[in-house]
């Protein structure tokens, strides 16, 4: 058996061979005989009454095989709800707009042709007549219900209150009370491969679906429900996926329209989203407007935190309405604040649909809490590291029940912060800052973020079979979108069995082969899927010991297992031998509770007050993911999420004009970090194993998106000697220049 904390090691990935030689297979790469291509006619208006959709000319375009708007269909499938069934009532989301559009880019019609050029010719020939209605882009404005997206229903789709109301006396007794407002802009996931789906009708009335997706079993169920098919008539296969980051967990209206077109044409239909569609009509993340109030006594003991957060969930609340509640539940952050109360609202707005984006509610919480704590430190005249240390949940307090209803499993927040401060050289940088402030030089700032986040949700399926040739097949309900499960899950199994990991083959992401599964999102794969495979491996060993004991006529407790073989009554049997005459397999389901990874990020920045430019000199990330199976892979994901976190802090925002039309239509407008924007990054880890699993892993991969933005914003505020609340992300040169004046 592997020692806790050493289940794998930094091995390189078995996935890489095909991907570095051009032999990967993404949805656009599939060669399916007779395949046609789809393009979508989309609304160019954020909010309007749909008067007419004329596809007459589209259908005349040579090569166009069919074109449909909602008016051409007797019945239009409805988009299912991701998490929160209550938002659906009275707010149906048709796959193609019926009588109203609620975001710019909403699909109005689908055109299918022999190839994509012709499909786009057909799309461009469509004529859509809309009567514009007022756009509502800000969730706090939308919540006033002056312009209703669904006549007769409030724009507030969900309102949640977390924690007990805070005694009014707390605010009066407190030595210091600070208030702050934040706006986390809407962001685009911008996976390098945008969304993609191919639907092939099969004989017998079923369909095979290849989709760039994170949750194939859910997609199967959703498609079956929406199309009126039995679930066993729908097979979903996820081939290589070019990144997902939360935007591929859902069942989007385009998927339903493609399936419908395939069934009508009785031909395979593929839709590959182009970058303009992804940036203007695709899913969005974040998008919260927040108000925070924080009270402290004179000694820096935090007394109460109140938060109100409103999320712009887009024209249809089906995929993002649960996110503000996630933010609210994380409102205590890493701190033992006696009273925390949150009002979280999901508000419909005439923007593209909101859904989880890497971090999914936790970055929004960390941003509000960590900037407000820095604001408090400024008011108290305390060092921000010291204020944090004073208020951390203590290691002995775990499991810790937050006032907002979460149970933090384990942690040592001060250890992570101390390691981060040592790694960055905090005292030296403070000296340098003091020197520059006294003697001149480019303003220098330090910013800290100590975060706790939530990982994992629900159970996961895992199975394992030993074969007579000495190989093993592991089956998982997870779905890699670049994380490297074929390598890391094999490591979990191999180290448990004491066999060569290269003999373990992983199967996942095909509903015809994997009987059950949840998928890969919420940093859940290793925490839940790895745990399921570890349990399956232990069950396999138990079965092997029983077989060996039976063969040699001894009691099972005298049969021992080591390095892939059972010793019983003086004989040794390999797992291959024990699998020779009948299958040796096991199945397991892991249902661990949510885990709470944590860490500390420190940014060192220089800000040019004349130009407003931010230079991130150094970024230190200390993360605690519990047990890490493959440090190479986990650090790779940490680094990548730091890059996305820097994008959030400094560059990225989905900006709309007053009419709600997206301004960013290309990657020249929506700015992603390149290598030249990357600072010197140092990563380190503390390890507090997950106490609720055998494996000990907590979620990894999203932390950089959570920890980086508040650290950078606090550092810029520190450099400019202003309140962090004066700054609004992304910290463009203009924002910093104005703030520094």
């Amino acid at each position, binding site marked *: 058996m592997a020692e806790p904390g050493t289940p794998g090691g930094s091995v390189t990935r078995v996935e890489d061979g095909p991907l570095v030689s051009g032999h990967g297979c993404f949805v656009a790469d599939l060669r399916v005989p007779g395949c046609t291509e789809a393009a979508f006619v989309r609304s160019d208006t954020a909010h309007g009454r749909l008067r007419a959709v004329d596809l007459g000319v589209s259908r005349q375009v040579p090569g166009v095989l069919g074109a449909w708007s909602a008016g051409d269909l007797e019945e239009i499938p409805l988009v299912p709800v991701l998490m929160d069934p209550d938002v659906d009532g009275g707010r149906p989301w048709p796959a193609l707009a019926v009588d109203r559009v609620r975001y710019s880019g909403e699909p109005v019609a689908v055109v299918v042709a022999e190839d994509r050029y012709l499909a786009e010719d057909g799309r461009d020939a469509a004529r859509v007549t809309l009567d514009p209605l007022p756009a509502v882009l800000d969730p706090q404005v939308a919540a006033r219900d002056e312009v209703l997206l669904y006549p007769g229903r409030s724009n507030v789709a969900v309102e949640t209150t977390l924690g007990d109301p805070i005694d009014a006396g707390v605010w009066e007794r407190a030595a210091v009370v600070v208030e702050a407002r934040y706006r986390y802009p809407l962001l685009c996931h911008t996976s390098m491969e945008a969304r993609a789906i191919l639907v092939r009708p099969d004989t017998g009335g079923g369909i095979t679906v290849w989709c760039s997706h994170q949750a194939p079993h859910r997609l199967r169920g959703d498609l079956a429900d929406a199309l009126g098919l039995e679930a066993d008539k729908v097979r979903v296969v996820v081939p290589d996926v070019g990144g997902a980051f939360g935007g591929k967990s859902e069942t989007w209206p385009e998927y339903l329209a493609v399936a419908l077109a395939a069934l009508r044409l009785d031909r395979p239909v593929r839709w590959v989203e182009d970058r303009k569609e992804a940036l203007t009509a695709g899913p969005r993340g974040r998008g919260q407007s927040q108000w925070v109030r924080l009270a402290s006594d004179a000694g820096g003991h935090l007394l109460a935190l109140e938060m109100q957060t409103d999320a712009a969930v887009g024209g249809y609340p089906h995929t993002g309405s649960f996110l503000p509640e996630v933010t609210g539940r994380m409102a205590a952050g890493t701190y033992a604040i006696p009273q925390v109360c949150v009002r979280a609202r999901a508000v419909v707005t005439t923007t593209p649909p909101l859904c989880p984006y890497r971090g999914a509610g936790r970055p929004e919480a960390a941003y509000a809490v960590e900037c407000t704590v820095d604001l408090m430190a400024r008011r108290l005249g305390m060092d921000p590291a010291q204020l944090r240390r004073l208020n951390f949940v203590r290691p002995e307090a775990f499991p810790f029940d937050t006032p907002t209803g979460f149970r933090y499993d384990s942690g040592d927040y001060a250890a992570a912060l101390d390691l981060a401060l040592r790694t960055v050289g905090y005292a030296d940088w403070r000296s340098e800052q003091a020197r520059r402030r006294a003697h001149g030089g480019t303003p220098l700032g330090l910013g800290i973020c100590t975060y706790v986040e939530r990982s994992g949700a629900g159970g996961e399926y895992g199975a394992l079979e030993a074969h007579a040739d000495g190989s093993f097949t592991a089956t998982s309900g997870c779905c890699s979108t670049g994380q490297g499960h074929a390598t890391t899950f094999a490591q979990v199994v191999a180290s448990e069995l004491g066999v060569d990991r290269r003999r373990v083959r992983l199967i996942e992401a095909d509903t015809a082969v994997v009987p059950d599964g949840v998928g890969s999102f919420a940093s859940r794969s290793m925490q839940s899927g790895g745990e399921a495979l570890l349990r399956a491996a232990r069950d396999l060993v138990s079965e092997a010991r029983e077989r060996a004991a039976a063969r040699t006529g001894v009691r099972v407790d005298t049969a021992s297992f080591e390095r892939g073989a059972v010793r019983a009554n003086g004989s040794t049997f390999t797992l291959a031998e024990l699998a020779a005459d009948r299958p040796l397999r096991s199945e397991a389901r892991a249902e661990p509770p949510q885990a709470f990874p944590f860490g500390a990020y420190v940014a060192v920045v220089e800000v040019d007050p004349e130009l407003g430019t931010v230079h991130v000199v150094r970024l230190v990330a200390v993360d605690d993911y519990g047990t890490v199976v493959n440090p190479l892979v986990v650090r790779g994901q940490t680094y990548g999420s730091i890059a996305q976190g820097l994008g959030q802090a400094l560059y990225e925002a989905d900006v709309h004009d007053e009419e709600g039309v997206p301004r960013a239509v290309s990657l020249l407008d929506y700015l992603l970090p390149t290598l*030249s924007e990357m600072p010197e990054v140092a990563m380190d880890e503390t390890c507090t194993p997950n106490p609720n699993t055998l494996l000990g892993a907590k979620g990894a991969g999203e932390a950089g998106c959570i920890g980086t933005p508040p650290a950078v914003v606090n550092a810029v505020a520190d450099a400019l000697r202003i309140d962090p609340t004066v700054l609004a992300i992304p910290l463009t040169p203009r924002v910093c220049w104005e703030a520094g004046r």
Partner: protein
Amino acid sequence: MRISLTVNGEKFRLEVEPRRTLADALREDCGLTGTHLGCEHGVCGACTVQVDDSAVRSCLMFAVQCDGHTVRTVEGLAAPDGTPHPLQSAFTAEHALQCGFCTPGFLMLAAAALDEDPAITDDPDRLRELLTSNLCRCTGYESIRRAVRRAADMPGPPD
């Protein structure tokens, strides 16, 4: 229009519309799907291939512009006997890919640069400028930079 081009040493005669991009001709007409399309407007660089030994974005070039020219794609990067190009080995060794979608573009970009001047890796600014050409959303780029440096230190490319 009728064109002919040599891709990875193989001659292709194609009938293409003038508007067909090189990327689509490679993917759909030559069956070489290793070249990926990430933006189709010349920013991300995922579709980078080599035309007459220069790295180009194949989404910004029409197939007809390559009539009579030589193209190399990621499928032609390894040696004919299958020995991986040093960059391919180095990308795996340094974990320079996660989803792998942008990888062919980075490989062809770096391969063209190393062919032209292997000393590029000795100049941090030139190497940074080169790799700033392309976008990756998974790695944060540092592992890609390390991989290109590592490849430059390995025995020469197989061709």
